[in-house]
């Protein structure tokens, strides 16, 4: 089978390419160029820099597969970066990696791959796709390595996309992926993982947003649940629900430690309160993608509201129009608008949506 591997220059996608090549597939390595690097400045982000593209090329050469770089700056800006900025401006905490997967890797890149006669796009994600022979339906499961599982970021893949998705490293633990890279003598075997959003240098979201959209960096008031002003802030984009640090409030004025409860973009306010006030039992989601058949009556599943969150039992009701209501059995801390809520049935992704 001819398969395009999205190669970031990291060890996971490199091993994904190696595994497919070793299995005898007709592998083509494609690296997405996401931002203009003609200026030569090294630091745009932690991934997909010129150095990373060179790493991908060297891995492709070691595997003896063709490698091309495709120019996706415009699409990356349109689907990922501008969404990121818009969400923060609207007082939400975005999840750009999920948009990149559904709107770029398994959309634009998949189109390019099909144009080259490939049947699928493979990535280095820790996740698993399977096809049910009886129903013909595709399912998405967590990666075998629970600590590395990235299924949370793939919740919005449609059946059409899952049909063309391949995750070669999803069924094995991370350490065995590195072992394979070393054994195969890939140049990136010991390259450290990228730990941050690929287009934000040094985790400095605030600086990035200040540069991108001056509207977000307007300061305002920090208020309690009753509207009393407790302090000031330099821009709501510097805060996320559940945040405790960086409020600039001393315990002597407030008593108990305070946490961000909500962001009000139109008033430019950050609402804070005690930890107990962070607990919610219900959330609504929009843009819901069902990987199973969309259920007509409420179902029970474990709902996960952050990448690092222990999924909690909940009742989930599809409301039509791409919306859903999720009621947890027990209150959850810091339900954050803009993040994804992903529903799991054991290790199977049932569906997911965007927290309102």
């Amino acid at each position, binding site marked *: 089978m001819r398969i395009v591997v999205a190669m970031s220059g990291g060890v996971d996608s490199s091993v994904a390419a190696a595994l497919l090549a070793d299995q005898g597939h007709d592998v083509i390595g494609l690296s997405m160029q996401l931002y*203009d690097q*003609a200026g030569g400045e090294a630091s745009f982000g932690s991934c997909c820099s010129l150095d990373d*593209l060179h790493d991908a090329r060297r891995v492709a050469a070691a595997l003896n597969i063709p490698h091309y770089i495709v120019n996706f700056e415009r699409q990356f800006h349109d689907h990922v970066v501008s969404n990121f900025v818009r969400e923060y401006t609207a007082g939400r905490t975005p999840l750009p990696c999920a948009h990149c997967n559904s709107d770029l890797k398994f*959309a634009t890149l998949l189109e390019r791959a099909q144009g*080259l006669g490939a049947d699928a796009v493979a990535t280095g994600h820790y996740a698993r796709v399977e096809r049910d022979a009886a129903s013909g339906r595709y399912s998405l499961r967590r990666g075998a390595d629970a600590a590395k599982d990235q299924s949370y970021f793939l919740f919005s893949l*449609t059946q*059409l996309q899952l049909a063309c998705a391949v995750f070669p490293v999803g069924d094995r633990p991370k350490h065995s992926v590195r072992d394979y890279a070393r054994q195969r003598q890939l140049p990136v075997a010991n390259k450290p993982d990228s730990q941050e959003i690929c287009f934000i240098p040094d985790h400095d979201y605030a600086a990035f947003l200040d540069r991108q959209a001056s509207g977000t960096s307007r300061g305002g008031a920090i208020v309690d649940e009753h509207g009393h002003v407790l302090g000031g802030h330099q821009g709501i984009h510097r805060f996320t629900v559940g945040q405790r640090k960086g409020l600039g409030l001393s315990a002597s004025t407030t008593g108990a430690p305070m946490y961000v409860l909500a962001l009000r973009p139109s008033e430019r306010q950050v609402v804070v309160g005690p930890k107990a006030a962070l607990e919610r039992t219900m959330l609504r989601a929009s843009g819901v993608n069902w990987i199973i058949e969309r259920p007509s009556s409420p179902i029970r599943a474990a709902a996960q509201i952050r990448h690092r969150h222990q999924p909690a039992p909940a009742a989930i009701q599809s409301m039509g129009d791409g919306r859903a209501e999720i009621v947890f059995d027990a209150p959850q801390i810091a339900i954050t608008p803009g993040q994804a809520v992903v529903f799991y049935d054991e290790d199977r992704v049932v569906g997911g949506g965007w927290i309102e």
Partner: protein
Amino acid sequence: MRVYFDYNATTPPAPEVTEAVVRVTRDIFGNASSVHHFGQQAKAAIDEARSAVASLINADPSEVVFTGGGTEADNFAVRGAADALEASGRTHLVASAIEHEAVLNTLRALARRGWRTTLLPVDESGIVAPDRLREAITADTAIVSVMHANNEIGTIQPVRELAAIAHEHGALMHTDAVQSAGKIAIDVRALGVDLLSLSAHKFNGPKGAGALWIKRGTRIHPILTGGKHERNRRAGTENVPAIAGLGVAARLAAGKLADQDARVGALRDRLEEGILRGVPGTVVNGARTSRVPNTTNISFDHVEAESLLIALDLDGVAVSTGSACSSGSLEPSHVLRAMGLPAHRTQNSLRFSLGLFSTDEEVDRVVEILPRLVEKLRGLTRSMRNSELGIRN
């Protein structure tokens, strides 16, 4: 079968060239500056190459300076002449908007040091109109640099007329002949230029050797300073094997100019016709008259050039686009943009450039497979719009 239609990027070395490079590497290893026998041998090899290059362009051998390639020759011409003229009070540099980056970026670097620069526009023919130079040139202009033939679309510029205008104003005329040398006849006397760049690997010579022709009496400073090589004009121990290869390539090319025109021109014409007829929605970029015989640059409607380029490579056909994506830049071709082509045409263009070893079979193969590849890519674009891969259920 692999088809190589990217001669404007680089050319396969002629067998005689490879033989000369190997032989000289092995047998004539002396430093040409040495007094002894080994140095004399090396010097003789260089002199022979110098004569061959001079003959190719109707120049005197003493006017030819060897460089490491075309880019260095361009840098030498523009920067070296600007440096020499700085003290004279001239402050202005002129080039065309479609020059190679070796000229454009050198101009930009000089602009940062205080030189005023003007880029002459072109229209959609891809040819600089002499009137544009008349409008831009002043008594302050030190150098005018306009290429002889453009690398992306192959159009030949009216260098003789431009040189005359430059001289009327006391400015020097440089022409980057990297894409014309070895393809069409060049006579530096007839052209009336003061400086001319060329590069070996564009006419079946080796990489790593080029030349700047400097008309006797032209004031120019070296940009590579050090030893007294090349009559104090370009320091550095000479790359004798590459220079020898350049000489052989020049001699071969001089004998084949008519062939280029007739044979390669015919192949290019047949390829061009075959594509225009066989693939709907195609158009040639730039004037089809006044063009080097080996190049055609074609826009394909509703197809991303990048995708077609990769699809062709996977099917064994090597061509190129104008943009340099793989080197980190996402800019569309500055040449096509300068011609006023709309964005979608600059993103949809491929350059096919043929040469010495191109065959009828290669032309047939490309004409045969292109329609299918283009149709497939166009079909995908249509169906993506229709089926919306991202529909949520």
